[in-house]
């Protein structure tokens, strides 16, 4: 080519190179990770407090400094330049390397914690023991692999939360929402349970309890060891147990009715917290095809059925051990489960039938018949409840859903499938909240008349894979069970078409064929057809 090379900065090229400052901060952050890696390979750091602080400190400086170099000198506004050019955010080489790295981390964490320094009979070593100083300070106990993980998890939400706030600083909604997520993770998931552990003793045997972690997301909440712990902890224990029950049956429906499931999924939840902060750069990778939506509905609702069966079986299995301790006996319990399921099913079928698609109706009927059928068979013929051992169901769920789906796939595959794979395809809590959001809530994303230009930013940046544009270009409000209310569609919309809001449930769903702005007679003629 004959054109003169004007400079070596490759102007005119898609922005995918890191600036000098960005490289510096990546390096600083990597130093912090290196310390953790050395500890994993059993390098003995002489002063654990110092080295843990140095390591976590340089990770913080790395991430926050990197955010500064990305957004600090730029005017506030949408910052998606080059998202599809950078290898890390467009399934390039770095995305795969990063994905493999996190996946490996989760595999080791869940299935081979000994490589992190967990020792069954002796004191912990390796990476875990590096976290001892912090663990002693909080709970008074040595660190476990879960404490180490919890610390890194919370730290990620905090530092990437700062990055997110920087990126979306023009939007109060995003700023407040992110502060909320950061707060709930730090206080409820991290500090309070550790302090609760410190209070434990003779009269108090509280299980580790993240109060915002609601069944069925914490599928283990009603397992026997936890129930025993609650019951052996006097009034506080009883209060926590009751809280655990009413949070799913009372608090959740009320809040979801008023605000949609976002009150939980993108404001409170820890999984959502990580997805919205550390996972934000990967939101555009979610699959928007209709086929993905079909798979999603079947998989996520199957998980709900699975967790319901599993929990019922587990509670059932320990109920009659000590008749004096549990007023609830096996028969009453199964009766209550059957009653609740029947009520929910009957309500949806009677009052919301027209809002359910055909296959959703078949699916609901099918699952309902199976569960009630199993209960009936058991009741009259006394066979094994749900055909499997409760323990088998429990361990299978814990392995497949609790570990592999939510951790290994859910987070490990962020850079490949997007940041909400678990929330979308796997989380039973999200499915229950979504069921409610779709059928009984004031929340919707309102579409602004005829202003949509079908550009596709909203759909592309929807982490839940909702084809937002398909609704917006029809002038139809978005009322979808999967929407977590992150608000990014409304941010990236260049024409002010989308608004998340809670309004009266009347007219929430409003399909149109001819949009506002055209002849009024034509609109009436076509839209009433």
């Amino acid at each position, binding site marked *: 080519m004959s054109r003169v090379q004007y400079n070596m900065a490759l102007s005119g090229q898609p922005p995918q190179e890191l600036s000098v400052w960005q490289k510096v901060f990546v390096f600083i952050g990597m130093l912090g990770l290196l310390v953790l890696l050395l500890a994993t390979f059993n390098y003995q750091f002489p002063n654990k407090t110092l080295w843990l602080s140095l390591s976590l400190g340089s990770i913080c400086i790395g991430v926050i400094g990197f955010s500064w170099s990305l957004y600090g000198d730029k*005017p506030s506004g*949408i910052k*998606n330049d*080059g998202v599809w050019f950078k290898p890390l955010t467009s399934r390039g080489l770095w995305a795969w390397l990063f994905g493999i790295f996190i996946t490996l981390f989760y595999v080791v964490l869940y299935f081979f914690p000994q490589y992190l320094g967990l020792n069954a009979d002796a004191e912990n070593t390796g990476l875990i023991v590096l976290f001892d100083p912090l663990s002693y300070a909080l709970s008074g106990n040595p660190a476990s692999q879960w404490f180490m993980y919890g610390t890194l998890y919370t730290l990620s939400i905090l530092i990437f939360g700062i990055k997110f706030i920087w990126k979306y600083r023009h939007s*109060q*909604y995003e700023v407040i929402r992110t502060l909320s997520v950061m707060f709930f993770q730090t206080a409820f998931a991290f500090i309070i349970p550790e302090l609760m552990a410190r209070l434990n003793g003779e009269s108090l045997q509280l299980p580790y309890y993240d109060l915002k972690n609601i069944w069925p997301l914490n599928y283990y909440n009603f397992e026997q060891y936890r129930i025993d712990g609650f019951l052996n902890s006097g009034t506080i224990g009883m209060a926590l147990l009751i809280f655990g029950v009413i949070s799913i049956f009372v608090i959740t429906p009320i809040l979801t009715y008023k605000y949609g499931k976002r009150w939980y999924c993108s404001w409170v939840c820890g999984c959502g917290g990580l997805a919205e902060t550390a996972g934000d750069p990967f939101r555009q990778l979610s699959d928007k095809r209709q086929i993905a939506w079909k798979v999603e509905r079947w998989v996520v609702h199957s998980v709900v059925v699975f967790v319901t069966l599993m929990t019922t079986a587990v509670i059932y299995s320990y109920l009659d051990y000590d008749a004096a301790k549990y007023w609830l006996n096996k028969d009453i319990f199964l009766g209550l489960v059957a009653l609740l399921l029947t009520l929910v099913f009957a309500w949806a079928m009677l009052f919301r039938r027209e809002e359910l698609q055909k296959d959703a109706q078949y699916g609901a009927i099918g699952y309902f018949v199976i569960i009630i059928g199993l209960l009936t068979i058991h009741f009259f013929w006394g066979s094994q409840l749900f055909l499997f051992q409760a323990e088998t169901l429990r361990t299978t769920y814990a392995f497949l859903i609790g570990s592999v789906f939510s951790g290994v796939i859910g987070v490990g595959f962020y850079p490949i499938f997007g940041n909400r794979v678990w929330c979308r395809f796997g989380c039973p809590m999200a499915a229950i909240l979504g069921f409610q959001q779709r059928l009984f809530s004031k929340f919707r994303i309102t579409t602004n008349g005829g202003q949509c230009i079908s550009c596709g930013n909203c759909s592309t940046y929807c982490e839940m894979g909702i084809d937002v544009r398909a609704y917006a270009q029809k002038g139809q409000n978005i009322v979808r069970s999967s929407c977590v209310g992150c608000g990014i569609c409304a941010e990236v919309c260049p024409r*002010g078409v989308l608004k998340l809001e809670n309004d009266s449930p009347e007219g929430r769903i409003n399909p149109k064929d001819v949009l506002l702005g055209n*002849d*009024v007679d*034509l609109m009436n003629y076509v839209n009433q057809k």
Partner: protein
Amino acid sequence: MSHVVIIGNGIAGITAARHIRKFSDKQITVISAETDYFFSRTALMYVYMGHLKFEHTQPYENRFWKKNRIDLKQAYIEEVDFKNKKLFSAVGEEIAYDQLILATGSVTNFRGWKGQEIDGVQGLVSKQDLELLEKNSTNLTHAVIVGGGLIGVELAEMLHTRKIEVSMLVREPHFWGSVLPKEEGKLISKHIQQHGINLLFETELDEIIADANNQVKAIITKSGQQIECQLVGVATGVKPNISFLKNTELETDKGILVNRNLETNISDVYAIGDCAQQREAIGNRKPVEAVWYTGRMMGEAVAQSICGNPTAYHPGNWFNSAKFFDIEYQTYGWVFPKQKEGFSDFYWEDEKNERALHFQYKTDSKEFVGVNAFGIRLRHEILDAWLTEKLSIKEVIQQFSKANFDKEFSKKFSRQLQKAFQQSQLQNA
């Protein structure tokens, strides 16, 4: 079964196709030389900036078309035989139609400058333009954009993301002077400048100069200033894409002349979208409306006519929107850029945040006629109703928070607005 052929797969043509399918069982063929599938033209900029991949700009999945029995055909139509109802493609293929909808859109309006055929001079309308821009961006350090309007500011924003220095030649004393009154013109001009774009006001292009390889080397303005650059972005508007229809019996002017039913002078031939020109302008609208929304509305209307329900194109209240770097713009009704006899203005600008509202109303009756909003989102439905009901400016200001479509927790402004309005009324009294 009659065969409807639509030339052009943009928003106008595709909307027509979708609605015809909805209301009839006709055979539908959509012909395009540009792309295989419908895409959002307004989103081309986001592909260049890396916000989207090209496939994200396609509003329907590829299987949509087959499912809805809309045949897509990639062909360049070179000739139309209106008498025998036949189209001829560039490769000599013959396509027969019963009804023809021309939705061929726009092309860049080169104004006949000396040197406009040099390599590196281009507009931004088609997907091919985007590909050309990608090619022209290699080793590009300085670009000149001619024209301070919507395509101009898009081009500026695009090139800016690749660290290319941009100078914009703006004919008026402020940005988009043909549409924006001077207050907001200045607000937006300042915003664009803050993003590092070099705005040259009251400057027009005279000549483009090539280097030895017929590449752009520099431009010369009408005042004789020479600016070195390797790209000239032409953003002085678009014109109907109808050159292949000249010298046929189809009546054309700037665009294809149509009546209110979007019928041309030839029966069974319709024209919609950017390429159509109303024989008589509708209200304050231009005879040729090159806007996404009007293209869609014409598509909705023509589909009715094709399906046996003759329908006039009868658009409601005017509205439009755009985004200038980080400032969103919406407009409803009419806000005239130059002071107009019988109309009064009320302009409010937030002192702290980059946002503003510009209202116009009839001086005598106080009837509200239009509003420009910057950095503030407004509810289309509410504004449309207010315009139709001819509310007074006072009523509009009083209940303006009803029209607010800003995101939750956004900073409120209605009190400030009302206070400013009261003051302006006192001054006027």
